[in-house]
Structures are given as C-alpha cells and as structure tokens.
C-alpha cells in the first residue's frame, strides 16, 4: 500500500509528464496538419495536373509508318518499289567502345569484302545507326554464327526503296537519303522518325508528301523500364497512293542505250499532252545504292568528274545553237523584216557596218544566195547574223520569251534550271555592260549569252509542232489526267508556222539538208534542226574556222556539243525529241540519229498499243 507521500510524488510526476507530453504533442499535431494540408492539396487541388503527369508517364505513342508509295509506268510496270533488307546496326553510344566488335564484323562476317564506313559519333546517343545494309544470305548466316561475340551489333529488317531497273530512271525518280533538319522544316506536317529516309531529288522529292502517306500510331502503356504492357489504341496508317509515271520504258531504254554513257541528255515528250516520254541524263547513277537497297561500288574520281548526279536534261544549260534558227526565222517573218523569199548573199561572213568586225559562218565559202528555207536547211549562219542584226535584241528577247525561253517549264522535278534569255537589262545587271549589236548577232545563231535546257528546248519545239499551243510537261499523272495548258503563241500570219515546218522537214528530206543522213524513202517524215554548240569561241581572225577548230579539238572537253531538236511524224506529230551530246561535235551525225530512232520506236509502240489494247 502506497503511502500518502508516494501518492503525492506520483501526482507531481504525472502532472510534469502531462505538461511535457503536451510540449511534444502540440508541435507534432501542427506537423500533422501541415502534412494533411499537403495531401489535400495534392489529391484535390492538383489532381488534374498530376493525372496528366501520370498519363504522360505511362502512355507512349509509337508512330506506324506506311510503306512508301510505288512508282509505276502507264502500262503498270513498277519502276520503284519497297523491298525488305536485313541490316546491321549499332547504338551510337556504343560506337566508341565497340571497335573490336566492328573489326570482328569486318573479318568474320564480311570476310574483308566490305568496307564499313564508321558513322558520325555525334548525335543522339540512343539512336541506332547503320553499319551495313542489304546483307546477303551468306552474311546473315555468318552473322548468326558470330552473334554471341557481337553483342553491340544488332540485326534488323527494314523496308528500303528499290528501283528494279537500276540506273535507268535515276534522274527521273531520284533517290532517298537520311532526313535532315531542312527536310523536317519543308515537310513539317509529316512525322519522320530519326532514321527515316526522305526523297532527296527527282520525283521522290517532288511527291514526297504523297509518297509518304499519313502515319498511324499505336498508343501503348509502358512500365518504368519502357516495356510495353498493353495496347490502348491503334490508328492504322493511311496507305499512300501509287504514282503513275508517263515515261515509256522502251524509249527510256533506247535513249540510254544510244547515249551509251556519253555525257548528254535526251528529252522526248508528247506535244499533244505534255507527257514526258523519255528523260535521260547521262551519265547516271544507281539510286539503289543510296537508298541502301543494293550494294554498289563507290563511284571513282573519274566517274564523279562527269557529274553523274547532275540532271542535264532539266538543269543543264546549253547554247541552243542552230536549233534556235527556226525561232529567229519565224520572228523575222512575223516582224516583216524578211519575207519567205527574201534573199541574202552568204559569202561566208557577215560584217558589221558600225565597227567592221567580221562574223564568220561555219562554211568557209558561204552558202551563196540564201532564202529563209535554205538558211534553215543548210543552217546558214550569215543569213541569221544579218536577220538578227535587223531584229534587235528587244524583239528577239520578247519573242523567245513567248516560247518559254528563260523560264522554268514547271515540270514536276525539283532541280530545274531557268537558263538564260538575255536582254539589255540582264547584261547590264549581271555583267555591268551595255548591250552591243555583236551580242545580238551571236544570239541570232543561238550562241553568245543565250542558254537553254534540253527540256526547255523540247517545250519550245513542241510549240512549233503544235502551231503555237503547248502543254506543261509532266512526269507523274493521276487517273483523271487532263493536259495542263502552258503557253500559246499566236502568230500574225498562221501560215508562217508552215513555212518553218516545211524548212525543218527539208533539213532531213532535202538533199542539201544538214540532217539528210536521216532520210530514207520509206520511213516516216520528221521535222528537225541540227545544232552544233561552240564551247570555245573562235577569236583568231587569220585562221579559217576549220583550221582554228582543229586546235580546239585537241581537248575533248572543248569540242562542240551536238544538238538535234525534232518532232514527228508529220503531219500529226506525237513526239518532240531533243538530244544533246556533250562534245559530240556533230548534230547531224551524233545527235540526230538518236532522235529519229526514238520517234520511230514510239510509232511502233503506238501501233502495238492499238493492236493489243491490253
């Protein structure tokens, strides 16, 4: 039994304990309140933002890309498709520490037959970068054997662009390449993965948007390690439509064959629709090697000197040379500077009254008495010197611009050049000099400052073939294709068209025509004009033209370009062909036969089409 003192002591103790108890309890209760407030704040006041945060954590959208649209010819031939290739990749962050594995890869998998270009180390470290594309079956087998020693190298199947005809359509279809910053800006409304390939040139570039299609997506739930737990939603990608290319396989093959690797270009188009039937620039390249769908030897230095990636047919600016003469003659008639039967004495040179300077024709002794027809048929330079000196540059420039010179044609390719249609302002602006009559005289024979692309020339020629009407040249067409009007030239006198056409037919059919070598009695009738474009001007007044040119010939690259611009068959032309062979020297011997073969081949094609309308 406790005594009273003990009870008193206990009471004191309990009192002290209760006091101290409160000293601890109350601050802790305040902390509890703070914690509760924080919890209420999180769950009630900020719930929405945290809910969004939580969804962002777990929900990932993975785009699904559709296969790239195909290119087909009008007869259904596929000229660009997608194939599955096996590729070896490595994560960029592992590149630095994987030298031994890459050496092993070279030695054991590729047996030193392949060079591995080590890719750039800079960039997103998580990206997988390509070590080797388009593996052969043997390489895949060897890789499988070595797999355990190559933990950083992974194999992956990928769809790559493949052109079954190899080089044939390189300058039309173009190639793909890794998407870069600029591409992302241009095609900003399309999603591209980091390793996406995008059209770089040609139709692949021009129709990138259509070919890419609209990507779909998979919405998946992932855990903290990025493992996919389940699929929440799937939106299928929109398959892009295929694109029909107007080219004719036979003509394209023929043109490539005929150019035979020489530097040059062939453009053939249907003047009644604007459809391009052949577009060849030579030399060409294999787009498949750039598309990573085919192994190819890298181009040598000599190959590159010939600029195989340069599309001469649309970007190459050449002096039109004598192929311009029909246009100048037409202007002469229209401007009433000459009549059809106006005669000019061609003594082999033309002398300017102002400064007495002599302009020599290509034929030493001249063509004698020349009217317009003879001037075109024999390609008299002196006739056109005289004519252009009377026409003035202003009229020539205005007239030629009506035929599309100095303007892009607007074909559906991306690297088209405007070339140059000079006038007084142009010269003052670019050269800082005033215009001389001598400049006009050079332009009269398609030399001097004037240049034109083969495609441009083909469109201008189609105006002659169609008596003024032209259609915009196209390579890719939709199902309901309607030719798009381009420009139309209206003459004061409609029969002037016939005068020019007759002259151009005579270029081949007349015994003295510059392209009479094309003539055979049973073949179809063609209108054409040869051209020989000087690269190096002949300045020495003492030597004759041919003597001086012997010197120039020494360097192959200084030799004249051979040109031929033509259309046929007369009277209902369905093909305009322009051929340029760089340093080919003779328009009639080198360029003209190619054009004739194309026109003839096209007629055979047409005939076949009519007999087998499948």
């Amino acid at each position, binding site marked *: 039994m406790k005594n009273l003192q003990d009870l008193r002591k206990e009471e004191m*103790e*309990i009192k002290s*304990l209760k006091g*101290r108890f409160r000293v*601890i309890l109350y601050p802790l209760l305040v902390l509890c309140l703070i914690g509760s407030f924080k919890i209420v704040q999180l769950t009630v006041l900020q*719930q929405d933002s*945290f809910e969004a945060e939580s969804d962002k*954590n*777990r929900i990932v959208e993975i785009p699904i890309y559709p296969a790239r649209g195909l290119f087909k010819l009008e007869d259904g031939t596929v000229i660009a498709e997608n194939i599955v290739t096996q590729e070896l990749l490595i994560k960029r962050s592992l590149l630095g520490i994987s030298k031994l594995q890459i050496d092993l890869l070279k030695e054991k998998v590729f047996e030193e037959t392949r060079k591995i270009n080590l890719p750039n180390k800079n960039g997103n470290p998580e990206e997988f970068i390509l070590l080797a594309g388009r593996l052969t079956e043997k390489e895949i087998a060897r890789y499988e054997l070595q797999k355990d020693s190559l933990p950083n190298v992974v194999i992956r199947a990928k769809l790559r662009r493949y052109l079954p005809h190899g080089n044939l359509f390189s300058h039309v279809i173009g190639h793909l390449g890794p998407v870069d910053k600029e591409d992302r800006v241009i095609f900003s409304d399309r999603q591209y993965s980091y390793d996406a390939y995008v059209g770089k040139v040609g139709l692949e570039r021009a129709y990138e948007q259509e070919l890419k299609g609209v990507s779909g997506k998979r919405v998946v739930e992932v855990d*903290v390690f990025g493992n996919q737990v389940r699929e929440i939603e799937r939106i299928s990608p929109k398959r892009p439509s295929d694109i029909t290319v107007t080219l004719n396989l036979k003509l394209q093959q023929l043109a490539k064959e005929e150019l035979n690797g020489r530097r040059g270009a062939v453009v053939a188009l249907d003047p009644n629709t604007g459809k391009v039937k052949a577009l060849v620039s030579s030399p060409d390249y294999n787009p498949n090697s750039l598309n990573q769908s085919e192994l190819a030897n890298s181009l040598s230095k000599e190959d590159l000197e010939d600029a195989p990636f340069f599309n001469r047919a649309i970007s190459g600016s050449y002096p039109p040379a004598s192929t311009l003469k029909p246009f100048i003659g037409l202007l002469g008639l229209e401007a009433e500077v000459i009549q059809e039967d106006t005669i000019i004495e061609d003594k082999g040179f033309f002398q300017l009254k102002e400064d007495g300077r002599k302009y020599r024709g290509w034929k030493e002794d001249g063509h004698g008495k020349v009217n317009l027809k003879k001037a075109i048929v024999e390609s008299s330079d002196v006739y056109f010197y005289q004519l252009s000196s009377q026409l003035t540059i202003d009229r020539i420039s205005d007239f030629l611009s009506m035929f599309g010179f100095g303007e892009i044609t607007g074909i559906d390719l991306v690297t088209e050049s405007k070339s140059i249609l000079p006038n007084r302002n142009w010269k003052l602006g670019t050269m800082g000099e005033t215009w001389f009559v001598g400049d006009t005289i050079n332009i009269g024979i398609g030399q001097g400052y004037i240049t034109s692309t083969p495609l441009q020339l083909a469109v201008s020629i189609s105006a002659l073939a169609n008596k003024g009407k032209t259609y915009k040249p196209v390579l890719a067409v939709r199902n309901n294709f309607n030719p798009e009007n381009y420009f139309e030239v209206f003459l004061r006198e409609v029969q002037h068209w016939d005068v020019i056409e007759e002259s151009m037919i005579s270029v081949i059919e007349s015994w003295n025509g510059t392209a009479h070598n094309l003539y055979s009695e049973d073949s179809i009738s063609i209108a054409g004009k040869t051209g020989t474009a000087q690269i190096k001007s002949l300045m020495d007044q003492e030597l004759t033209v041919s003597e001086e040119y012997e010197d120039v010939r020494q360097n192959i690259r200084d030799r004249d370009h051979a040109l031929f611009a033509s259309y046929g068959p007369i009277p209902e032309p369905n093909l305009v062909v322009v051929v340029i062979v760089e340093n080919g020297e003779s328009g009639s011997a080198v360029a003209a036969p190619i054009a004739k073969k194309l026109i003839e081949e096209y007629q055979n094609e047409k005939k076949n089409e009519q007999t087998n309308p499948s």
Partner: protein
Amino acid sequence: MSKRTPLDYSINKPLSTDYNPFRYVVKDIPLFISLILILSFGLLMLYSSSGQSLAMVSRQFIYILGGLAIMTFVSHLKPESYKNILMHSYWLGFLMLIYVLINPAEGYSTSRWIDLGFFSFQPSEILRLILPLSLVAYLCRKESKIKFSDWFLTTFAALLVSYLIFEQPDLGTSLIVFTSGMIPIFLAGLPLRIIASYLLIIALISPYVWSNLLEYQKQRILTYFDSNVDPLGDGWNIAQSQTAIGSGGFFGKGYLQGTQSQLNFIPESHSDFIFSVIGEELGLLGIAFLFVVYSFILWRVFKIGLMAQSTFERLACCSLGFIFLLFILINVSMVVGIIPVVGVPLPLISQGGTSIVVHLLAFGVILSSKRPQL
C-alpha cells in the same frame, strides 16, 4: 475516469464479474482490433504494391503472426520483470552497430545490414524502438529521484548509437534514432538548464558537422529544397510519388488499378513508398481511413500510458506513442515531398519483417502496462 473503481473497494479488480477470455488474451480489445485492421490493410496494399506477389505477402503474413505472438506474450508479462532486459538490450544494439561497421553485408553500398542468410535486417531499425525503451528502463531503474549525471549518461548513450548509424553512413536514420532516444529523456523530466546548454552546443557545432557530411547526404538535404533540380536523382522518387498520390484524387484509381504503382513508376513502392500506392489506388478516402485508424491507435496508446501505474510504464508508453506518431509523420511527409527522402517505413504497413516485429513488440510493452480496469 468514471470507470475507475472506488479506492476503498478492491483496488486492482474490475467491477464487472463476467469473465471474457478474449479480453483476457488480447488485454485491450479496441487496440487489438485496430491493430488487426491496419495489419490486414497493410497486407492488401502490399499485395498491390509488390506487383501482386503472393510470396512477399505470405512472408509478411508470417512475420505478422510471429509479431502478434511476441506482442501477446510480452503483454502478459509484468513490466518489472523485463525492465532489466530492456535496459541491457542497449548493448545488443550497440554491438550490432559495431558489427555492421566492421563487417558490412555484401551487396549493399552502405554498411547497414546484418545478413543472417535466411533473413537480413538493419540494426538501426531495431534501435529506433529499443533505444528509447532501454533509456526509460535505465532512468527508472531505481525508485528514487533521477540523478543529475543520469541525464548526461542517457544523452550520451543516444548520441553514441546515433553516431554509429551516422558512420554507416545514414544521416536520416541517425537523426531519427537520436530523436527517439531524446523523447523519453525529455518526458522523464530533463531539466530546462540542460536543454538550454544542449541547444547552445548544437548551435556551436552544427557548421562543423555540415562540412563533414558526405556529398550524397548534402545532396539529399538539398534535393528537398528543390525536387525539380534533379529529376532522375532523388527528386525523381519524390516527383513520382507525388504524381501517384495527386493522380489518385479523392476516390483513387481503384485497388490494383494504380498505373504509377502497377507499372513500377513508384520506387520502393512496397516498402518506404507504400503510402503513395495507398494514395493512388484508394485516394484521399483511403488515406483518411488510414489516418483515422492510426489516430485511434495513438489515442488508445496515450490513454493507456497516461493512466499506467508506474513511472516506467507511463514513460515507455508515451515515448513509444510519440515515436510511432513521429514515424508516420516522417514517412508521410517524405512520400508527399515535405521532407527529404529518409529510410523510414510506414509503421505496420510497409514491407519488412524487422519493422513489423519490433513495432508489435513495442505494442506488447504498451499492452503490458495497461491497468486491468481501464
């Protein structure tokens, strides 16, 4: 007070004569039921947060059964009979701390663990509850008034083990252990003069201590001030757990439906961060339920403590009650991002055998202090 029997009648016997065996075994039915409630709730949440691992839940269940057995056993002992054992258990804890410093378990970056092969545990986790009990036992070892030197001795004892834990290194736990040691000393009546001198010493040496903290410990403290500074470091844990609780809203996403927890975005979701799983899946409602049960337990503990017969019992119960409250407060504050990340489990809920057994042992001490007529 109304239930208290008159003094002149039989002092230690309840008035009611009906004998209830259940009440006899568990000693306090309301406390026992609320403990069972919270332990079951913990098992359910553990099942969800462990990625629905039955193995982990069964293991925890076995610990709970063991812990309840120990609790019941201790609750039937007289405090006087185990007071001395508690007092000397300080040395057991001290030796274990020395052991982990000399002989750290393999596979851990810090020397905190003792690995017994079938079972590994942190001595510091045991010390959190053993230290205050042994200090109370020491202070109350005699009937007489506490000697002046005892205050310093007990403070030193608390400081010593805290330092050993700090050396592991584990700053957070070290502070917690020290606090749990100081609570009973304060409650026992630590004179104000000594408190004032302690505060002075702390103010003088704290700059020196700060400069001796390890870089990651400083980092941890700094992370608290701006959890956006280091989204993939310590701050990431806090951000993810806040996201979980916040996205749970008022009603929660539903049991087993928490995306943050089921997809492993919450780190340590089955142990220290289990509170965020509760918040995400059961919402504010679930949290409120948890807090109500916790509050009830605490109310019961303090009631038992303040009504207990001996100084030892009163101090032990009140200290354990405060430490229990402190652990809840620290764990919840950490998980919601009020304080930096420290390794404190949510009492009776978080996965971990040591924590469960030691807590139930403490409840055994509390129950044994209960006056039968209460």
